[in-house]
């Protein structure tokens, strides 16, 4: 494409033949229309290129062509610059290089060439395929806003600006991917976000050299500090209201074309446990829910391992009456408890995967079959004890009190590892597993912010929003940003 970087010629026939050879023959969705215009009394040929289905032709003919006609008729100098200056349509711009013009053509803009005039006019009247900003299914809220991000970055920015109509919200565009030309908008609050954090992200975004970028998960992988970890180092959201709240905390969002998910950086473990509804409810209730969520996290990580360790090695830690009912439940089960736990947890993951892959209506059936029918049948057939079924059930439910899906998936793997260690070494294995887990999480430092932040390092101000949630009016604004910048200056 060496030709693409050169200037657009003044000769229409030259341009047309080039276009026919390189674009029109390959991309049949690009249409070219020849027209004759009266330019200062002379009739001249022109060419209008557009993308079928994307360029808003009605609007173009209604505004651009109607406006262009008298301007060309009165024209003296053969320059598009003068025409653009006098045109009353802001969507029209003038470009000289093939490269920029072609990139815009595939975004659905109309391109106008005139014989004898160098350069081209670009009409950005585009009706892109888009959907309405419906509430995201993964992040539902009972109260409050019910709109969600879509796959178009400009529309997403509009949803954000609707909430924060202020120049303090900075928006910088980056174009990533030599093939996809994906636009990524880096948004942050100028006075609040840590400048170091912003420049780090800017540098990383600039440094990205890839051919394609389609998913926000890809961007996440390209930006993250540590590659070998199962814990998410970015948060994500599909809710504009959450993004607005995140920005006011001093964190940074990355809105990306073709993905309805907005990446959020930096993130700590405790922030991953926050749910949108936390800010829509009465604060005493939210405190209870937050504590419940943390208990859920612990249960989902350690319950199967603890159960196996207690029943296999440390029967003395089980109260006598519980022991008796557990003995009765396990009687006749052919597998040792660790194997039983792995079978049941494996089955649960299987059902979950099946439920996810199937259409939504059928997915519920799988869930029902898995829990009720198979669980009950397994107990009756003596494959699993009732106690184990209860443990796996409680564990499974507890996993999904974690609002972040990526974190929930990470928990699944960590749980298995800890279970295996506990199966071999009892409580000692469980504790070793917990130590390794905490050690690993403490070593995570995404974008210079400690993953276990309000605990380690201990930041008291952050407890009021991360661990519990105090009254909204009392929450000192931007505490997160302050602690993060302080953290960075400490280093």
């Amino acid at each position, binding site marked *: 494409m060496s030709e693409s970087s050169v200037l657009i010629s003044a000769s229409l026939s030259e341009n047309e033949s080039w276009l026919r050879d390189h674009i029109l023959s390959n991309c049949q969705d690009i249409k070219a229309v020849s027209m004759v215009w009266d330019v200062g009394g002379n009739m001249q040929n022109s060419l209008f290129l557009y993308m079928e289905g994307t360029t808003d032709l009605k609007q173009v003919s209604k505004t651009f062509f109607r406006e262009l006609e008298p301007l060309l008729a009165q024209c003296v100098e053969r320059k598009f610059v003068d025409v653009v200056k006098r045109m009353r349509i802001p969507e029209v711009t003038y470009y000289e290089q093939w490269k920029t013009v072609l990139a815009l053509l595939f975004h659905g803009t109309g391109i106008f060439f005139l014989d004898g005039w160098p350069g081209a006019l670009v009409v950005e009247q585009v009706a892109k395929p888009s959907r309405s900003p419906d509430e995201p299914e993964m992040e539902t809220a009972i109260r409050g806003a019910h709109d969600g991000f879509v796959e178009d970055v400009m529309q997403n920015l509009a949803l954000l600006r609707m909430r924060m109509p202020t120049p303090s919200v900075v928006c910088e565009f980056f174009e990533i991917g030599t093939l996809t030309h994906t636009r990524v908008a880096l948004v942050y609050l100028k006075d609040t976000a840590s400048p170091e954090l912003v420049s780090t992200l800017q540098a990383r975004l600039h440094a990205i050299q890839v051919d394609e970028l389609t998913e926000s998960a890809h961007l996440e992988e390209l930006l993250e500090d540590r590659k070998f970890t199962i814990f998410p180092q970015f948060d994500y959201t599909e809710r504009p209201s959450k993004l607005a709240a995140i920005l006011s905390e001093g964190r940074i969002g990355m809105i990306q074309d073709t993905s309805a998910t907005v990446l959020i950086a930096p993130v700590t473990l405790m922030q991953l446990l926050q749910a949108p509804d936390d800010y829509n409810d009465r604060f005493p209730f939210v405190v209870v829910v937050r504590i419940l969520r943390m208990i859920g996290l612990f249960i989902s990580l350690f319950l199967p391992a603890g159960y196996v360790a207690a029943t296999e090695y440390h029967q003395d830690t089980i109260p006598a009456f519980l022991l*008796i009912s557990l003995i009765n439940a396990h*009687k006749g089960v052919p597998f040792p408890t660790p194997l039983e736990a792995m079978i049941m947890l494996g089955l649960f993951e299987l059902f979950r995967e099946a439920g996810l892959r199937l259409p939504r209506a059928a997915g519920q059936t799988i869930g029902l079959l898995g829990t009720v029918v198979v669980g009950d049948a397994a107990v009756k057939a003596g494959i699993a004890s009732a106690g184990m079924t209860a443990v796996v059930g409680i564990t499974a439910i507890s996993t999904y009190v974690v609002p972040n899906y990526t974190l929930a998936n990470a928990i699944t793997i960590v749980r298995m590892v800890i279970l295996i260690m506990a199966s071999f070494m009892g409580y000692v294995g469980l504790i070793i597993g917990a130590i390794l887990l905490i050690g690993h999480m403490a070593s995570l430092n995404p974008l210079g912010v400690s993953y276990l932040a309000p605990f380690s390092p201990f930041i008291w101000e952050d407890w009021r929003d991360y661990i519990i949630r105090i009254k909204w009016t009392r929450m000192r604004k931007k505490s997160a940003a302050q602690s993060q910048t302080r953290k960075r200056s400490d280093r």
Partner: protein
Amino acid sequence: MNFLSHRMSAVWKLAACAILSLLLTGCWDSADLDNIAYVHSLGVDYDHGHYKIWLGLIDPTKSGIEESKSTGETSRALWVVYGTGRSFLEAVNAIYPSSPKRVSWSHFSLLILHENVLRGPYKEVIEALTRYREVRYTSWVYGTKDTMGNLFTANLPVENNPLYYYVANPKRVQQFGYVVPSVRLNEWQRALHEPVGSAILPQMALNHQRDVHWPKSKDKPYDELLLPTVGVFRHERFMGWLSHRDMLGVFWARTGGTRVPLFLPPAPGSTEQVILYIHHLHVEIHPMQRRHHWTYDLKISGPVDLAQEGQGRAEKEIITLAERVIERDVRRTFRTGVMHHADILNITPKVYRGALMLWPPNTRQKLLNNLELRADSLRNVNIHLTLVHTGMRTVD
């Protein structure tokens, strides 16, 4: 590259640690919880160099949830196993080979020692028992005069199942009815080794007057487990069981305690008893030194509930009468103790603990001698009862 190799070596080290840890003994030591026989209770008897022991093993099928719901049939929740030997451990080891499952002591919670053991080698038994790592020091411990076999095979009413009584919390059971304090093995051992005071051990007995408290079921009379009195130890030596009358002083001279009924004689010309419930007693001991000898003032106070008013007695009269009865009981128990050189009411530790600082180590024996109780050591017993609850009606 250097970083990578460093990281890889760390990974290899970690993997090696993980694999080597599989060689640890714990790794292959696991046993499914239903392949273990759990010892719940142990009874030890001794007869001229021969030990006889009874083990109560938890029978999960008899004590499960379903069982108790279904039949209502009386069934012991324990398998009782019997073994003999020339030493305690020999007797225990005589049982192991016969057990189809591994025997675990991790849920051991009831130890019954026969009078014969208490008068003989009970210390050896405790030592051998607690040396085993699985045995907890917190099991409940009782003495007995009855034949051990009868205690273990007693036909108890469903709710009187020993598993339900003593696995749970005997202290809660004692809130009503049983007023003899249960002790744990560690508490008893600590008290045994005290240089002053006395250790007490509750006695467990079968109610021989059958059919008195519990109705018959299917022509099988129920047995009943009772805690009638306590045994007294001094300097690790068993002194004998207290009589019921002497027990009363032990009830009154304890802080806390349970709801104890006090039956007062009817007023002249009336046949109705006056019944009080005394609870949450507060006992203060005030020692005083007289040359080489210590005297003690006891102050006992607490709330009283009136259960039955009787006739012809005023409120003040009832209280005074109750206070006099309690003082009499306390003094009687004290006198019994003095006769046997035992401090049953445990009043001397107050001085021993409090004055320990004042006494240099070489004069410790002198202090202990001074602490020997005499008949006049108990000077004043001040009882102060407050009537707090008289029911819906007030006393006229």
